[in-house]
């Protein structure tokens, strides 16, 4: 029987290789720092893509889950002296419970009403975080303890000896973030390739079709809503420990929009595409600093043009272009140069 090789077989090792080699090309610790953050955010977006790209359910409030994870870790470790992992798990459980409770009524909605409801939910959570200063530190933010794993503290400022080598905490953190991203991708792809993932994609493709073959669509929508919320919560926790300081902006509407933009920009329902989306959107503010006053305008323009000319997102459009170039290598470059 001719078993087609699933796409994930080459993808994951390539991503691993890129992540492994990347530190060699990074000029300084600042670049490493950005790379670490990108990896954490990319993992969040991979989770969001399960909901938006594969499930076809738009969420404009996902940063709220990210923020809840971040704040749960910050508060439980900082104020209550927990260690990192139980705090992270507790945050994720809390978020799962909330997503499960809210997801039921919200996911009955369709289209723009769903966007609206998720947006409202996100904003309410952000407002609570902003207002309850006694717990969250309010708009001025909250310092977060470094990550502790089994009594050992992982701080980006320290150096550690690993197998006899002196390794900076920043590099270790990068390694951790890279591992988390690989894990996030691996799990997401497992899910997509499973009967559950198929049911989920069918919800996007044709909800009636899914239902008449026996797929309990509301169950799967809820399931994936919770999963993507947990992704966000867990990454939010790591992110809080990594940056060492969080403000309510991590849970804000703007951040939600940023996350969904990464998904759409990179390419919905393309796991590697959304990672590319995260990379670009995180780098853009750094790249555009030279434009000074024109920065905001440039950002808007780039976003708009990319989506107009590549409505399917960067990676799907690029790979389609490559595929089209391949069979007729002689004629294609000519049309590309016009």
């Amino acid at each position: 029987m001719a078993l087609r090789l699933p796409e994930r077989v080459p993808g994951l090792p390539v991503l691993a290789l890129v992540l492994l080699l990347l530190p060699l090309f990074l000029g300084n610790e600042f670049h490493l720092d950005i790379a670490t953050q990108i990896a954490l955010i990319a993992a969040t977006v991979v989770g969001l893509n399960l909901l938006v790209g594969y499930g076809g359910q738009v969420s404009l409030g996902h940063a709220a889950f990210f923020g809840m994870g971040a704040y749960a870790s910050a508060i439980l470790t900082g104020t209550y002296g927990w260690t990192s992992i139980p705090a992270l798990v507790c945050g994720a459980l809390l978020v799962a419970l909330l997503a499960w409770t809210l997801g039921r009524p919200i996911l009955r909605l369709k289209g723009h009403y769903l966007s609206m409801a998720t947006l409202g939910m996100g904003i309410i959570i952000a407002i609570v975080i902003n207002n309850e200063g006694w717990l969250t530190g309010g708009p001025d933010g909250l310092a977060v303890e470094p990550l502790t794993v089994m009594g050992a503290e992982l701080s980006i400022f320290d150096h550690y000896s690993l197998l006899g080598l002196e390794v900076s905490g920043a590099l270790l953190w990068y390694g951790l973030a890279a591992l988390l991203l690989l894990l996030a991708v691996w799990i997401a792809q497992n899910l997509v390739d499973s009967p559950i993932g198929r049911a989920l994609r069918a919800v996007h493709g044709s909800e009636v079709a899914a239902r008449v073959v026996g797929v309990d669509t509301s169950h799967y929508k809820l399931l994936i809503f919770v999963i993507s919320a947990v992704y966000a919560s867990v990454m939010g926790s790591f992110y809080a420990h990594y940056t060492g300081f969080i403000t309510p902006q991590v849970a804000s509407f703007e951040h939600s929009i940023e996350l969904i933009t990464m998904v759409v920009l990179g390419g919905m329902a393309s796991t590697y595409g959304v990672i590319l989306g995260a990379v670009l959107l995180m780098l853009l503010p750094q790249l555009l600093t030279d434009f000074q006053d024109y920065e905001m305008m440039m950002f808007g323009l780039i976003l708009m043009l990319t989506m107009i000319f590549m409505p399917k997102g960067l990676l799907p459009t690029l790979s389609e272009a490559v595929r089209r170039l391949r069979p007729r290598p002689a004629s294609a470059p000519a049309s590309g140069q016009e």
Partner: protein
Amino acid sequence: MNQSVQQTETSCDDTARPAPLLEVRGLGKAFGGVHAVDDLSFRILPGEVYAVIGPNGAGKTTLFNLITGLYQPDQGDIALKGEAVQGLPPERLARLGMSRTFQNLQICMNMTALENVMLGRHLHLKRNFLAALLRWPSLRASERTCRAQAEELIRFVGCGDYVDADAAAMPYGALKRLEIARALATQPAILLLDEPAAGLNSTETAALEQLIRKVAAGGITVVLVEHDMKLVMSISDRVLVLDYGRKLAEGTPREIRDNPDVIAAYLGG
């Protein structure tokens, strides 16, 4: 044809006939005051090919949507294998052995042909969440089996060339058959086909006829809404004629062809 079909051709008050697979009693559905389906009753027996015909707007698709749980009936009962099922959602009905296709294709265009049919196997697969998350070996084995069954079905409906094609890239006629393959993948007791021949050329229609015969021969009860009279008359055991949501006539193709009411309705009476 098989035995049960022979029996239906005897009179209606025969108490010895087998229990109907699907029974509809006094079904009604109105949209904004217009009765799309009005006090409709009929029975479909196991193994027969049952066609529903009628002019446009006669309520055929509404009837299908009511039977398959996409619409809620305003009144009336529907029984599947003797069990009351009116108001149940489609996913519950699928568990009870009901499957269907659509007049306007409902194919998941974001998936391949194979995946669409594998989707049809949904109810028959292990759907353990952790197994899916971690991709356990048992899951991989069951996926392999599922893939093989789906390929088999795609070949059965005559779409063997398109196994790994993206659904979005397939021609219309192939998609219509793909939808049947997906419906068959659920291993239904009763299969409802909504205008399967619409948009097909005569060669394709002939192939479709063969396919429906093969399906029925496999013991699956087939209900179809169809405009192609030649097809209906040649494969149906019994025909139901709807007009303005009401039953105009019911009987064998021969009876229907000779029914004066039907002739009047069809010839602009």
